[in-house]
């Protein structure tokens, strides 16, 4: 099946978990190192949401100024952070670049511990919602890396290919 191509391609996946939720500067400094590594296909950043407006309570709908909700620059792209990043999921082309990722983490996470784990962390087949939103012929690289209800898509950072 076309939709399941992603499952068949068994690219190694890595999860970076820091023991602290990260400030945008730290995220930027790690991403800058990661994009310099050849062979990373996709990166997902996870963490608790920082909404643009107050979501609940009597102040609902009012603006929510937050110093950790801001843009960072990675490669030539601006990325608007909407979460306080705590986890990175990466899909790489070959296992031999994982030590490079570990080295980048070592350089950035100096004040607190972190873990780099290998396993299957990304969704491997489209859900019903993906199917409704992207259709049957969706680009398999997009599946599972953005929230289907989000209005914005993924950021594409020009790589080496």
């Amino acid at each position, binding site marked *: 099946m076309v939709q399941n191509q992603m499952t068949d391609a068994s690219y190694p996946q890595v999860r970076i978990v*820091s*023991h*602290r*939720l*990260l*400030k945008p500067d*730290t995220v930027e400094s790690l991403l800058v190192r990661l994009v310099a590594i050849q062979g990373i296909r996709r990166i997902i950043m996870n963490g*608790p*949401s*920082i*909404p643009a407006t*107050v*979501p*609940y*309570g*009597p*102040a*609902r709908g*009012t603006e*929510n*100024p*937050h*110093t*950790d909700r801001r843009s960072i620059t990675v490669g030539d792209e601006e990325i608007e952070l909407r979460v*306080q990043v*705590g986890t990175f999921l990466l899909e790489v082309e070959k296992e031999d670049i994982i030590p490079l990722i570990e080295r980048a983490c070592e350089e950035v996470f100096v*004040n*607190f511990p972190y873990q780099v784990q290998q396993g299957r962390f990304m969704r491997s087949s489209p859900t019903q919602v993906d199917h409704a939103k992207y259709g049957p012929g969706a680009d398999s690289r997009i599946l599972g890396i953005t929230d289907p209800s989000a209005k914005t898509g993924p950021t594409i950072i020009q790589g080496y290919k």
Partner: protein
Amino acid sequence: MAYTPQYGPGSSVVAENRRKQMNPSISLQKMRDVTDEDIVLILGHRAPGQAYPTAHPPLAEQGEPDCPIRKIVTPTPGAAAGDRVRYIQFADSMFNAPCQPYQRTYTEAYRFRGIDPGTLSGRQIVECRERDLEKYSQELINTNLFDPALTGIRGATVHGHSLRLAEDGMMFDMLQRCKLEGGVVNYVKNQIGEPLDKKVNVGKPQDAAWLKANTTMFHSLVGTSYRSDEEYVEYIKRIHSLRTKYGFMPVE
């Protein structure tokens, strides 16, 4: 027969801290000096200096019915004046915050009058008459029940108590009501997330050693583990056993 409350079981430092907080004959340790006006700003229920809006006329003017209970129970100042019922709500980080929801409710019930606490897993709210609330809030914020980094005063959008701390040691708050600036924590929004005209300084966060020694939470990784307190484990086993047997054969 004279009854001496035990407040709680346990031989660990956590158990001792719990008893100390609950026992009204032990005064809470004063740690900081947040002023009345600053408390009013954080609460966000009225403007500082504004008269207390009322829900009913003062009891003295109202003409109370002839009721034996009303003769026994003295009304709190807020109830006597007919204040509105207002609230303060706290979220306590699981990383050794000095207090936690159940503990807060027990502590408040032992120490305060005329309150209606609501206990949830990640937050605890206490409702009472407005002027009583301000007085109790002073005690909840200025004493060892509060830590600027690990205790959040959050009326809504409380998410964060069970998350990893941020790099600077602050508990996650999606509304960033308080910020760590130059080593001290300043509230920049009131408890529901509306920006304040001036910052409210609530002092320096406590260090890890103080938190570990003063927390009322068990935590096997960053604090005292529950299993290390044999008396507590025995107590919980007994409660569990009695609950399970009750109705079938409620004997020990």
